């Protein structure tokens, strides 16, 4: 299974651990803490690379038993079909239980309204909170990483949410040593971020080391796309392209996987995980800067979404 990775550090000594070993052990520790202290934990699983790594870690943490968690996916209705197929394949292979919360259901019932720009990314918060409440989930694992965004940089590993799912950055519990405080009142829940200390590069290096299967849209492929706000978006049921947005064919891949309306592709020739790693390491743009339209809205876009209960 896992080969011990030689550490290129002259100060390491015989008991050195690589940065991936340390991050892996830390994440496994977090999964086991939740298993030990919560009744109904759930893993947010979108089929994106961060959630794939989370699931892989959860499977390792409890082997040879199955992980004591089910999975939850908030489906915007605008997800990439390749990713949904991957999601269902993985769920079946490991015999896991998946709950899907549909944004479409709440649009149909009139509780949510489509936005003029067609993106459903901010609409995920209500079905997420509804699913958490309805299933009485008390711990919700998210793949958020602190290196992604400046509001996330201040997030705790165990992040207490009130009965409205809200995040108040000024009322966070101090988090010291490896002591994670998961105590919460009925109706409240805790968001847990086992990949808090991972970077995008760590995630890819770990995928390479563990030989984890990922959806094919992460690799370079030829795709019909159009340009909007400096990003390549894929046409789809969500409404793009607009009238003056010509569709062209480009060789692209996705650096992140989210709602099709606001997740951009990057031009790429990377066909293997190793080539992706080299490409990311040389990139001069952050993952969200390169691919997420929703974070370009304002300096505090993520902070505002998190306050309202977003992932």
């Amino acid at each position: 299974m896992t080969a011990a990775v030689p550490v290129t550090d002259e100060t390491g000594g015989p008991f050195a651990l690589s940065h991936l070993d340390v991050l892996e052990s830390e994440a496994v520790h977090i999964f086991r803490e939740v298993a030990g202290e919560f009744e109904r934990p759930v893993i947010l699983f979108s089929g994106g690379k961060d959630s794939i790594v989370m699931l892989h870690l959860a499977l390792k943490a409890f082997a040879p038993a199955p992980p004591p968690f089910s999975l939850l996916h908030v489906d915007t209705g605008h997800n990439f079909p390749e990713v949904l197929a991957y999601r269902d394949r993985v769920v079946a292979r490991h015999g896991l239980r998946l709950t899907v919360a549909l944004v479409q259901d709440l649009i149909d019932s009139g509780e949510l309204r489509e936005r003029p720009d067609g993106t459903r990314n901010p609409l995920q918060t209500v079905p997420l909170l509804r699913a958490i409440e309805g299933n009485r989930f008390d711990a919700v694992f998210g793949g958020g990483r602190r290196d992604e965004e400046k509001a996330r940089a201040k997030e705790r590993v165990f992040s207490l949410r009130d009965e409205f799912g809200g995040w108040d950055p000024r009322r966070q519990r101090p988090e010291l040593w490896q002591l994670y405080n998961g105590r919460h009142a009925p109706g409240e829940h805790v968001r847990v971020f086992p990949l808090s200390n991972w970077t995008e590069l760590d995630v890819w290096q770990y995928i390479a080391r563990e030989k984890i299967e990922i959806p094919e849209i992460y690799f370079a492929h030829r795709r019909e796309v159009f340009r909007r706000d400096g990003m390549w978006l894929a046409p789809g049921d969500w409404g793009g392209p607009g009238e003056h947005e010509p569709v062209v064919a480009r060789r692209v891949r996705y650096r992140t996987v989210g709602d099709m309306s606001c997740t951009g592709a990057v031009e790429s020739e990377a066909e293997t995980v190793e080539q992706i790693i080299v490409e990311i390491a040389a990139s001069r743009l952050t993952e969200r800067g390169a691919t997420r339209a929703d974070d370009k809205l304002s300096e505090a876009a993520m902070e505002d979404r998190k306050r309202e209960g977003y992932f």
Partner: protein
Amino acid sequence: MTAAETADTAAISATSLLRFATAGSVDDGKSTLVGRLLHDSKSVLSDQLAAVELASRNRGQAAPDLALLTDGLRAEREQGITIDVAYRYFATPRRRFILADTPGHVQYTRNMVTGASTAELAIILVDARNGVVEQTRRHAAVAALLRVPQVVLAVNKMDLVGYEEPVFARIAAEFGRYATSLGVRDVTAIPISALAGDNVVTPSATMDWYGGPTVLEHLETVPVAHDPSAEPARFPVQYVIRPQSPEHPDFRGYAGQLASGVLRVGDRVTVQPSGLTSTVTAIDALGQSVDLAWAPQSVTVSLADDLDISRGDLLAPADATAPTSQDVTATVCHLHDRPLLPGARVLVKHTTRTVKAIVREIPSRLTLDDLSPHPEPGRLAANDIGRVVLRTAEPLALDDYAVSRTTGSFLLLDPADGATLTAGMAGEAFADAAAGPGTDAGPGAADDGWDF
């Protein structure tokens, strides 16, 4: 080396990880130093830099203000302050870094305590014009109290004192004396100008009298961890894995992360606090069967005997167990806005175990600026450091914090609303009072003037 080549090297090699914290007073230029480290190590990407340039222009500043790279929340930008610990990530071909960036305000001691709790190194900044001030002593005391193994004194704004060696030498000597008195043995002083970039990433062209490493060179080469074979093994059980499946009908594994030391197959272990003993028959290191494992690896341990072991128990070598007691004396930092009072009923969260306890006494409070003790303070307010005596409802297998930062630390929680109240470190406060195994008594070791 170009950025792309640097990145390639970093991408291909597995490296070690260093966690460090920074502390400085409000105007010591800490954010500029952190911004400079991130920028000059090419860890800031062009969209982040563009955002900083835009924000600087909006504020009427001509040059991009690198301090803005580390600003997080809207409230902080509006008030020009940092209200919380922010974590930063960067890498060089030699090492990966996790930086806990902690604010310097007096009222935010708890943030520095939080950042220092996981740090293997602390950078303390001083302004070369002001030298060692009250805040500096406070930061040094927190680093010493939390037993951060390495301390760097960054003497900043050398450009404003004419890059003069005597200024640096005087400050370094004064800080060195104070750090030694706190039991901190490993201090590296570096003269820098974060604004101009001297000795942060690249060696200074104007301070040829300094022959030591730059801040980044030091971070890249300082030894990361101490030798786990010199410590007793400590394995807090997190979870019992029992598949009860047709393939694994009888499997029973104890899942946990080694808090310290080395555990080997064949080791005779004691289950604490029950005192039962057994032998390690197998160690599974996340899918790989191994003969030994060491801190901080997460593993699953199998034992020869079917014992009643559950979450909260500690496995320790039968010949080197942790002391167990219901009476705990510790140094604490109070974190919550509600004060801690004698007689308070609390929960103690220690490794994987949470037990009820009562605060029997608060014998003293410590002023960190000058380490003066205040006996019988009656209460501890937020950001206070003090001594407490607890009585727990069940025994805890609690090492001195000097022996293990993991099995010697705990939190006090409010049983009513679950709030995190207080951070605790078992045993004596500073290294001179209780030297752990493997530590040699430094020159200031006999100087125990802080019996508070």
